């Protein structure tokens, strides 16, 4: 019969890598998508604004589990170039990235808009082009402003990655579930351990990056935090 330490160990050994992989790639994909969508939304022409806000509304309205099922079972040939066994993982990463991109576009849109528009004018008055001003004046400030809300998005994605168990990926939730199946007396305990592990991977990050960054920004007189 495994003790508490064994349960922690089992879940970490069997599930942690996949959970972190899904979270990292989902966040990265969402970051790239979100930045592009936010720029389209803030600076784009009418059609681009329409496209970006439409995408965001659509993706925010679909549950993540449905998205995962669509890509994993609904479009089985979507990742035709991948090995058949890797396709579910790729489907989940795609679903997480597309969904997170919709939310992150809002985060970055807010961040870009909260940089004082006077700075753009000042930069242009100094002879910078609009692109130059955006790249070296707006974006560095906007990314700093986005950090607190972005850590919140990290917390959302790491928790959403637990849905990957539905298509047969062994991540922390699935590992805890498997342990509960093997030892019925430990069912509640192993699920509880998984809950603690998710918390341990969520709270410190939110604390270090979120709260400290908010304080720092306040010192600099930026953001409402």
């Amino acid at each position, binding site marked *: 019969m*495994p003790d508490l330490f*064994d349960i922690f*160990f*089992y879940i970490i*050994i*069997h599930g942690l890598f996949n959970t972190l992989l899904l979270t990292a790639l989902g966040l990265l994909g969402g970051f790239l998508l979100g930045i592009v969508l936010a720029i389209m939304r803030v600076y784009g022409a009418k059609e681009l604004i329409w496209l970006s806000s439409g995408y965001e509304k659509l993706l925010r309205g679909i549950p993540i589990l449905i998205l995962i*099922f669509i890509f*994993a*079972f*609904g479009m*089985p*040939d979507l990742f035709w170039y991948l090995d*058949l*066994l890797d*396709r*579910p993982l790729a489907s989940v990463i795609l679903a997480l990235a597309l969904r997170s991109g919709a939310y992150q576009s809002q985060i970055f849109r807010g961040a870009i808009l909260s940089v004082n528009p006077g700075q753009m004018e000042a930069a242009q008055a100094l002879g910078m082009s609009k692109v130059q001003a955006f790249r070296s004046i707006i974006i560095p400030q906007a990314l700093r402003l986005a950090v607190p809300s972005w850590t919140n998005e990290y917390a959302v994605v790491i928790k959403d990655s637990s849905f990957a*168990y*539905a*298509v*047969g990926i*062994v991540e922390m939730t*699935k*590992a805890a*579930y*498997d*342990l*509960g*199946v*093997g*030892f*019925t007396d430990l*069912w509640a305990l192993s699920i509880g351990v998984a809950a603690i592990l998710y918390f341990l991977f969520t709270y410190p990050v939110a604390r270090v990056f979120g709260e400290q960054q908010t304080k720092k920004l306040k010192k600099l007189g930026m953001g409402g935090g």
Partner: protein
Amino acid sequence: MKREIGILGMVICIVVGFSLGWFIPGLFTEPAPTPLIDQIQARGYIIVGTSADYPPFENKTYPGGEIVGFDIDVSQMIADALGVTLQMQDIGFDSLIGACRAGTIDMIAAAMTYNTVRAAQLAASITYISVSQVVIVKNDSLVFPAPISNLTDLIGFEVGCQLGTVMQTELEAIVGITVYTYASADVLIQDLNAGGIDAAYVDGPIFNAWEGTYVLRIIYSSEETPLALWTRHGEPALLYEINKVIFDSYQDGSMYTLINKWFGNVTA
């Protein structure tokens, strides 16, 4: 004059458009797909889907986390016959049929009962084992002191079963039974033992697997129902191989060895 040219142009465009539309599908039609059995042998492994929460048919080892069970050993025999390695995919029971139809997995081995609804969606093998379904209660149950003769005797009581199983369909067809569904058998049995439900309707081998852990009693046993392995329709060569393995294993007795290994004294 301009108007005539315009009209002529429109007519030409429509004719060209329609004729292109007639031919384009022909260009996009794929050549006949290679049979699944050839694909499996080309890639060197067969992907078998299961829901690893149903001992003794399938569950995971501790601490290795490998999927083991009766169905896995049967699948291994099929993989051996095809000359490929076996890759198990652990998917929720309700998602298995969708996954197999989509091509995520090649075959299902998950103690899945044969019925016509499933047979319309997937191709069933010959029966590889028959099990009876049993209604079980706690041994000291006062609600059911004696065996019952029919499922309708459960009317008015709270009965648990596994989500997406034939037992669920059977129970829900009877008006008056409060049906509780569980994603996995272990939680179901645990809840029965804790008194959350009055009775549970499960596969016979499930009772045998858990009677060592909890003190349970059978009050009703159905006729034996056949379990099948499932693959996609239109793959006769693969289905033939699967059926041949099952048939041969009963002929040479290797299936009985497996049954004894996993179910102990259960008659099959």
